[in-house]
Structures are given as structure tokens and as C-alpha cells.
């Protein structure tokens, strides 16, 4: 059961990350098009404003994927000295702290969106982008991260209780087995 959940989460986040990747590529193409247009004496206007929004949204939605790929950097000086039981305890603790912290962040991100909804805020730019439009997906990304962190913690805790330390470590350990770069 916990393995199924983890596999499902990974697959889901792979999709999310693919989507995020496409958004990032689209942003690069948009910037390139604007650079070329400028040479021809014209411009879309507002590319940097839009890149900013893209960065905020790409960042928040990529977080959960990175967590499941064990990409958030941890210092393992003490951890690497321990036997597998000790490592797993540290991993569980670390994951719990992560889940808690990200939940606080997601919780504190909501008032930013709420404020924009309440004031019908628009960016202080000629584009007048409605801020709710870009802050809502950004907030949902952090919420998604928090949700994934708790589910992963629960799944890893079950694995640990079953004594399956190896699976726990591959779910919430300090480094991926193999770096993704080959």
C-alpha cells in the first residue's frame, strides 16, 4: 500500500513537472520572440513581468517533484555515520519538519492571495495583470507541496513500522540512488 501511494505520487508529479517544463520552455520562446521583435522595432511589452510570474509558479509547482526525487539538499555528515535504523529515524524526523514548515508557508501564502482578491489588485504596470490570476496558481503549488510532504511522510512511516528501512530510505533519504545526470 505505501509503495503504491509513493509510486502514484511520483507518477503524478512527473506529469506536473512535465507541464511545468513546458511552461518554462514556452517562456523561453516568448522571450526569444520578443528579442527578435525588438530588433524589428516592435515588442510584446511586459516580457519581464510575465517571466516573473512564470518563475514564481514554476518554482512552487516544482517543489513537490524535487522532494520526491530527493533533490532538496541535505547535509549528511552525521547521518552518513549511522546504521540504517538511525538513518531512517533522521529521515523521518527531517521529513516531518519539512512537512510542518511547508504547511506554515502554504498557510501564510493564502493571505497574499486573499488580499489581492479583496482589493481586486492589478499589477502596477501597463499590463494591469489581475494579481489573483497569477497568485492563485502560485499558492496552490505550495499547498500541493505541503500535501505531498504529509502523504510521503505517512507512507514512509508505515514502511518504517514494517521494518522496511531500504524502502523508507529510497522514499525520504538524503540522496537519490543515482544522480539524474548521466
Amino acid at each position: 500500500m505505501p509503495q503504491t501511494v509513493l509510486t502514484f505520487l511520483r507518477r503524478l508529479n512527473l506529469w506536473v513537472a512535465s507541464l511545468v517544463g513546458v511552461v518554462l520552455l514556452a517562456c523561453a520562446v516568448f522571450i526569444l520572440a520578443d528579442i527578435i521583435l525588438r530588433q524589428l522595432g516592435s515588442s510584446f511589452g511586459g516580457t519581464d513581468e510575465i517571466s516573473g510570474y512564470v518563475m514564481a509558479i514554476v518554482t512552487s509547482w516544482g517543489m513537490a517533484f524535487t522532494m520526491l526525487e530527493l533533490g532538496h539538499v541535505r547535509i549528511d555528515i552525521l547521518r552518513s555515520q549511522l546504521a540504517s535504523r538511525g538513518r531512517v529515524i533522521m529521515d523521518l524526523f527531517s521529513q516531518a519538519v519539512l512537512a510542518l514548515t511547508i504547511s506554515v508557508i502554504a498557510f501564510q501564502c493564502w493571505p497574499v492571495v486573499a488580499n489581492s482578491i479583496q482589493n481586486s489588485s492589478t499589477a502596477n504596470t501597463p499590463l494591469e495583470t489581475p494579481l489573483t490570476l497569477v497568485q492563485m496558481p502560485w499558492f496552490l503549488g505550495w499547498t500541493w507541496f505541503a500535501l505531498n510532504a504529509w502523504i510521503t511522510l505517512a507512507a514512509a512511516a508505515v514502511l518504517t513500522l514494517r521494518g522496511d528501512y531500504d524502502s523508507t530510505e529510497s522514499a525520504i533519504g538524503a540522496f537519490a540512488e543515482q544522480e539524474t545526470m548521466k
Partner: protein
Amino acid sequence: ESLNVVGSWSSLPLHQQYEQPFWTETLPAAADDLEVALTTHDQMGLGTGDVYTLLGQGVYDVGMTVADYAVADAPELEGLDVPLIATDAATAKQMVDAARPMVTDIYHDRFNSHVLAIAPYPPQVVFCNHDISSLADLEGLKVRASGRMTAKFLEALGAEGINVAFSEVPGALQKGVVDCAVTGAGSGYSAGWWEVSTHLMTLPLGGWDPVVTAMNLDKWNSLSPELQETIQTQITTEFEDPAWATAQDALANDVACLTGNGDCPAGDPASMTLVEATPEDTERAKEILVNEVLPEWGERAGAEWVQRWNDSVGEVVGVTIPAS
């Protein structure tokens, strides 16, 4: 009593010459048992639009920044800094005084805070690396502007608004990425913009960028009436008035430094060509403002604010926004 104060840009003269001495020396000396801790929003890494939002939430007691940064949350606040109308400090001060009741209400309702003072940044003038002789010549040029209303005005004038970071403007002017750029005359002088531009138009295309000092409303209400009185009197006489009093001279000095016409106390004068606004320019600017830019603002802010603006600021400067 203690106050946590967040100042405006730490590198600019308003902070160094007025805010810092006022909050760290003048006010503590005038009020008994008042401790002040001062930092600035750039040192805290705050987004420019966040200063008043967090002030309202009580993250600190006193905050000050350019009112224009906050218009994302309060479009009606754009009416405080309409570009081009006030060509000298005296008129700008009159506009601000006329707008003060509006500003007070906006800060009360939108940001849960009490307005203490409104001080000017130097007027935002135009540096061009392009031969211009009037406002109309900006048509078709690429201009780096800041602020929504200025950008809208440039659009209406037929110029193209380009976004460039302050620190990249010299390079952008030199390479023709932009033909003109708007900033305070003093900032432009100290950042060396005169090395890469030829013409200086002293029309305040970017307005006067008023900096609003406000206190969290709950904090304000918790102070004793005596302390409220002391703070208000002190900030008006020792901070706001002096900042306004030197604004006109500062502009004259900065223009002298940039053009070489007159004494430059800040260093060696440059020799930019001074382009003064013709009566036709002023006429044209007003026309565009009244017929395009301000009605658009009216749509963002709502009819109630247009009415209030017409009755106060509009009254002082002789401009009426037509009802849409």
C-alpha cells in the same frame, strides 16, 4: 514606548538626509522615553508593493515608501501623483495638500494605517540620448518609464514604454535600447546618466513620486494623545516641511549640475542640452491627461474618487476629469 520603523530606499537622499536623522535623533529627543529602531524596505528585501500591506498587518509600526508602489492594491491612490501637472515644488505641495484627506482615507481603509506625512522625491525628469526639442518629439521613441500612469501617458503620446532596471539604463541609453529614460534629476546625475545622454527635459513626466509615511492604525490608536501630538507636530515641522522646502532648490541644483547652467554643489557639472517645455507642450500634455489618461484612471478607481479628485486636486490645478 518603542517604534519599529521601515524607511524608504536607503541609498537615496530623502532617507539619508531626512528620514534617518528625524527618526533616530530629532524625534527621540523631542519625545520622552521613545525608542526607535530604523531599517529600510530594501534592506529587508521587501517587495516594493508590500510595504503598506505589512504595515497594516502590524509587522512593523511605521512604514514609508513611494505611494505609487502601492497602487496595485489601491488604484485610487494613483490620483496622488498625476504626472506633468505640477512643474514646480510649490504646485506639487499644493496638490499633495489638496489630496491629503483622500490619501488619509485610502490608507485608513485599505492599509489599516494612519498617514503622518507626505514628502517628495525629486521630480522625475526625462534624459534622452536623442535630439528632442519638445514633448511631441517623444513620439515614436523608446522610453524607460516607471509607474503605471506615466507608462499610460507615454502610450497615449505615441512613445513606446520599455522596462529596464535602473542600473542598466546607462548601457541601454548608450546602445539605443532606449532613447530616453525617466528618473529623478539627482539620481540621474549621481548615476552618471549624463555621460550617455544628450538632452534633458525638465518636464516632470514621472511626477514627484510622493513618499507617504504612515503608522499602523492600532499602534497609532494605542498612543497617548500627547505622544500622538508630539509625533505629528515633529514630523510635520522637522521632516515634511524641510523636505519640501529644499525640493525646489534641489531640482535647480541638479539641473545646473546636469546642464552646466549655474552652480553645481555636487561636483563637476555636465553639459546636457536643456529642453524646456513650451506652452504648446504643457497644453498637449494636459489634453492627453484629461482626455485619455485620467478617464482611464477613473475607470480603475471608480466615479466616487474621480469626483473627490475633481473637487480637491483638480480644483487646485484647474483640471477636471470628464465623467465617463
